[in-house]
């Protein structure tokens, strides 16, 4: 598998919908730019900082396990 390919799936869109929150609101709560959150939401991110993960989980009241999963190959 090439280094830039992965099977990690981000469930940010579902978590936002469950909480009735928009990307802009999440950006305001976390201090993370909407551009980066959009990359994460649309599955275009290739890596995530622990600080980003912590801020998103704090803002959404979830765990990394809720936010990310690995799709079956």
């Amino acid at each position: 598998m090439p280094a830039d390919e992965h099977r990690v799936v981000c469930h940010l869109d579902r978590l936002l919908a469950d909480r009735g929150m928009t990307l802009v609101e999440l950006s305001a709560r976390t201090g993370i730019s909407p551009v980066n959150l959009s990359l994460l939401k649309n599955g275009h991110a290739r890596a995530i900082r622990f600080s980003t993960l912590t801020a998103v989980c704090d803002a959404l009241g979830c765990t990394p396990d809720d936010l990310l999963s690995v799709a079956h190959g």
Partner: protein
Amino acid sequence: MPWVRRLSGLVVILGLVAGVVGVGYAINGMTQAPGFVKAPVTLIDADAPTGWADVEVDVPGVDVPDGWFAGAQPPGSGSGLVSGADGRLTIVAWDSTRIEQLLSRGDRLVGGLGLLVGALALGPVLGSIAQGRPFAPGNARRLTVVAATVAIAGSIAPTLPEIAGFLVLERTGLAGPDFASATSPSLQPVLVGGVVLALALAFRAGERLSDDVRGLV
């Protein structure tokens, strides 16, 4: 950085001008055959080959009190590369050949072409730096081209007129114990090329780092 963008354009324009002028100057020289050709030669004191400035150069009508004229210091003599050479003169001879004319201006030709290649490689690097993307893909390769160009063109260019001098001395029958055409290899272009190559390697590492953080949120 607008000034870097302007510098990028200026570098490319200067490279193009240098390339055109260098080629034009060399071609113009070839059209001068069989007119006179000027080429550097090295004067050697066969009797006392102790070093630069031992030989007196006679300038008609000019007398130096308690001294004399010597040829210019031969290139490389400071590092002992041209042992026993006493001075560098320019020989001017008629009935030149096209190859003599071309080689006598070969430093401008190779220098101009080197500047052209270097500028065309450096321009996009400066352009991407102006856009805030110094480690854009391809910049390391372009800087490697610049390094190779500096080392190769800088080493070859000065030797071509000296080869022309050798050809002129052979043709005129002056080659012998008094005159020689000594090539004077210089380490400076190689060292400068090495510095640019080190920069290229640093940019290559930067490209890898930049690729690693692409998509990082």
